[in-house]
């Protein structure tokens, strides 16, 4: 049985400060998941991931993460990815605290 492809975003960490970033449709790295390109086609997702992985001077550890379409743009599906959009839960640090 072929596995159904579920929508993804390309995400990574910024090389210089380690902050979480997402790949946008126009090839930028955004600090907000809402600006990410939601990849609904598996072949296209693979190509976008390859592009991301070729940008090792800007980002580290690019991978595809499950996402879904939301009111403001793509949203995380898994709790780990949700934490990556915010920051830690013990202090208002990271994205939720303006880094």
């Amino acid at each position, binding site marked *: 049985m072929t596995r159904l492809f579920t929508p993804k975003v390309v995400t990574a960490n910024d090389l210089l*400060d380690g902050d979480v970033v997402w790949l946008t449709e126009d090839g930028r790295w955004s600090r907000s998941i809402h600006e990410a390109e939601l990849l609904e086609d598996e072949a296209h997702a693979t190509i976008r991931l390859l592009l991301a992985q070729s940008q090792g*001077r800007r980002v580290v550890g690019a991978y595809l993460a499950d996402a879904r379409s939301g009111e403001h743009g793509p949203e995380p599906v898994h*709790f*780990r990815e949700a934490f990556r959009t915010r920051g830690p839960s013990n202090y208002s640090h*990271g994205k939720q605290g303006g880094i």
Partner: protein
Amino acid sequence: MYAYNDFDEAFVRERVAQFRAQVERRINGSLTEDEFRPLRLMNGLYLQLHAYMLRVAVPYGTINPTQMRQLAHIAEAFDKGYGHFTTRQNIQFNWPKLRDLPDILDALAEVQMHAIQTSGNTIRNVTADHFAGAAADEIEDPRPYPELLRQWSTDHPEFQFLPRKFKIAITGSPNDRAVTKAHDIGLRMVRSADGVPGFEVIVGGGLGRTPMVGKVIRGFLPTGELLPYVEAVVSVWNLLGRRDNKYKARIKITVHEHGLDEIRRLVEERFAEIRPSFSGVDPQLLAGFKQHFAGPDLAVRPVDAFDAARRADPAFRSWSDTNLAAHRAADYAIVTISLKKPGATPGDATSAQMRAMARIAETYGHGELRISHEQNVILPHVHKSDLPAVYRALREADLASANVGLVSDIIACPGMDYCALATARSIPVAQEIAERFDALKLDHEIGPLKIKISGCIYACGHHHVGHIGILGLDRAGVENYQITLGGDGTEDMVLGDKTGPGFSYDEISDAVERIVRAYLALRLSQAETFLQAYKRVGLEPFKAALYDREAQADAA
């Protein structure tokens, strides 16, 4: 404590200069991440969930006030004003920027600190009894030995590409506060039949995915033979250890697969081979180190002020009941500063708190500080007459929680709030449990109880040896917490028993409270600790408390 000589100073500075160039080459694109990663790990730099993380070694948990102040400075200048003390007696900074790393390492080098071999498949920072040099029950201060091991293992050419990381712990006391049986090598000081100090050498312990209690490979090793013997063990494992599967690479699996007797035979064979090549430089070095660790000149003064304060101030009495341990000198005490204020992050200290601890150590503690694997800070030598003043100063720094060894003195790894490997959060679980029991005002009634929480199976939070262990997992995309009971990290090390199905994030504090209430109901008297009661009654009553009520609630 140990002070760097010219060689150490030059070595650490040179390493920083190398790393500065490596960072520059990474940023300008000359190095790929695949090339840079092993280099940054050699210098303690991880890339975590939200940011880089720098792990700084606190060798065998010993740190002086100048160093503590420099950590405070680094936290302020390069991070977010705090540091996180870990279960391996290190400190981690959670938010450094890549460009700042060389400057941070330079700042560390200024105070004789570094981050070398705090990561990677090398021999890691050797951990030690945090009461070393002060404890009443100690045979000998063990710290000269890990200093010897540190110098020997740092950049040791044979041991830079081990099958996996390698962790050593040491204690100079028969009462094991260093969890030696959960290490690749554990060294526990014992006396021979004729009273000579030596080491019981334990091998193949570890927690993580496949928890195992370490086994005694040599009942008595003369202290002078420590280095060649440890080298023999690492060398045998370096050849036999599995490099095909990282989950089977640790020495605990090697010992398990080949059997203790075969490993012992190979180690003794290797030991006999290399022993003659150790020319005696190591005992000479050791004798020098012992002078570095000569204890402070202890004062002889009346202790009336301590007794008077205990009579006058119930808060001080409560704190001194829980946070003091017996010192080898009757007029002194070992103070444990709790970094576990209920609701706070276990092991975190702000820059202001680090400076306060440095100041208190200088004023009242002979300038000595230790980090414990239980994520607290120790003042090893405080004269009892100074304890009221120490307590007042700790209160001003919000560091006077009277809860050491109690339910709210929880060990917790960073978990999914920071760690890229974690499968669930640990910190907020610790915060909620501690706040829950603080609100119930039950902590002193419950008595000694160690809760240990890990956010993944690698077990940095030592959950297997918690009286109550909590392991956070990802079950079908939801955080789920598995409970173990009856674990014990002392010389009688026992791995905890799984209770059964796990609990959700919202249920875990309730579950822990049910366990504790079951204990309070079934204990024979207040003198019977949780662990003693568990050993007496076993898992069943606690399972009933955990799950029967679940069933009732479901039925309702």
